[in-house]
């Protein structure tokens, strides 16, 4: 109950503070750089190899009933709807939620959060709002880029290892991939970004007991973000595609 109450206060505080606008533009830009830009390499590599592996798996499975030609379509749809957003969300959660929780947790146990308050600066406005904004707006873009790189990974494997012609692969991808597939993944990204940043900030703010406490906060931030991402993904998938 205490955890839920604290989480409620944290979310409430976020929306209250964002309403009374004090924009720390430098902090927001820094958060975009650290959360969005710096996540690109690891996200890109993950998407590239996942797209490639997915193409191989679909080809191996499809060949059992002479359906090898579905590889481009399933790679594209799979990346855009599920693998891009979920893997992207989990990778960014591991990288960003841990980093936010460790940073804010260390500030908590070294009294830097108290110092912020004594220096007439609200820690929610200064630390939480920029990170939540940056993560919520960066994740959709990261996921769109990740989807493209994943499809590229499938394409490279398709034409180099599975004997697809480049034009056939691209035409099949373009004809099967619908705009709703892409947007469903991007909308998931908005939710995942919010979850990641909030989990990092919340666990950092409630860190205690020195280095051990910061370690626990970091672990909890990643675990909570991953679990919430997976659960939210299921709920959103039901909402988007069940009908």
């Amino acid at each position, binding site marked *: 109950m205490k955890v839920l109450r604290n989480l409620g206060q944290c979310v409430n505080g976020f929306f209250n503070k964002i309403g009374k606008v004090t924009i*720390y533009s430098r902090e927001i830009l820094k958060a975009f750089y650290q959360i969005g830009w710096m996540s690109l390499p690891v996200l890109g590599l993950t998407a590239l190899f996942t797209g490639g592996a997915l193409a191989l798996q679909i080809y191996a499975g499809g060949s059992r009933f002479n359906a090898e030609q579905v590889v481009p379509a399933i790679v594209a749809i799979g990346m855009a709807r599920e693998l891009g957003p979920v893997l992207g969300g989990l990778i960014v959660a591991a990288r960003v939620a841990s980093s936010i929780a460790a940073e804010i947790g*260390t*500030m908590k146990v*070294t*009294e*830097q959060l*108290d*110092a912020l*308050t*004594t*220096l*007439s*600066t609200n820690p929610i406005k*200064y630390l939480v709002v920029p990170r939540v904004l940056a993560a919520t707006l960066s994740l959709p873009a990261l996921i769109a880029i990740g989807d493209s790189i994943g499809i590229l990974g499938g394409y490279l494997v398709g034409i180099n290892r599975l004997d697809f012609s480049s034009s056939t692969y691209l035409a099949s991808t373009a004809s099967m991939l619908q705009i709703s597939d892409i947007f469903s993944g991007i909308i998931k990204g908005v939710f995942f970004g919010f979850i990641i940043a909030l989990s990092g900030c919340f666990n950092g703010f409630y860190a205690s007991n020195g280095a051990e406490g910061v370690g626990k906060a970091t672990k909890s931030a990643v675990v909570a973000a991953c679990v919430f991402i997976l659960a939210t993904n299921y709920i959103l998938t039901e909402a988007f595609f069940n009908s």
Partner: protein
Amino acid sequence: MIEIRNIHKTFGKQKVLDGVNIFAHKGSSTALIGTSGGGKSVILKILLGLIEPDEGEVFIDNVKVSHREPGRTLSRIGMLFQGSALFDSLPVWQNICFKFLKGTEKLSSRDAKELAIQNLEKVGLNYKVANKFPADLSGGMKKRVALARAIVGNPKIILFDEPTTGLDPIMTNTINSLIREIVETMDVTTLTITHDISSVQQISDNVALLDSGRIRWKGKSKELKGSKDPYVFQFINGKHNGPINVN
């Protein structure tokens, strides 16, 4: 002026403050001594509006401290934290002038840096330190930078939380002398938490001894060593036996 009236605070089942009253008139320097975990830091956090007391009231220059609106009184207060609490990601000059860069009172970067260098000089550090980061500083230098941050903007009240903890005797003496000098030149009211009896006598006029959430003794700092009070005697002589429960 600092006035703490009948403050009570409980965390879980543990009663930390049990009817504490402290009055520090304008321009005075008061030290709060007592055993570790005795609630001294909680008093400071209540004064800053970071913690809400269960009962009682706190006034800073006759303005009531509010947990919901700490900004009403915070602008009058400078605070030196026990571990310095400098922001690792910012250079020294931005740490010192943080409230003028990010807080409600705004200064340009150029003016803020100039002000930071002036305050560094007040604490015996030269301008070259301004561009360094906290990780590049020794413990003593961090304390001085934190002291510069506490005095920037000429606060009316300065709170010191164990200002000399972890410092060698020479640096302890340097910091105490700086605090004394600042208190005298700035005409501020100070409240200092410390375990160090020599620091008490160097930087404060009045002393209060806190034990088990209550003030057990109040007096002048020069009366401390000659006091026959059993709490004071046990505390300053470091005796295990006596009215203070050390377990």
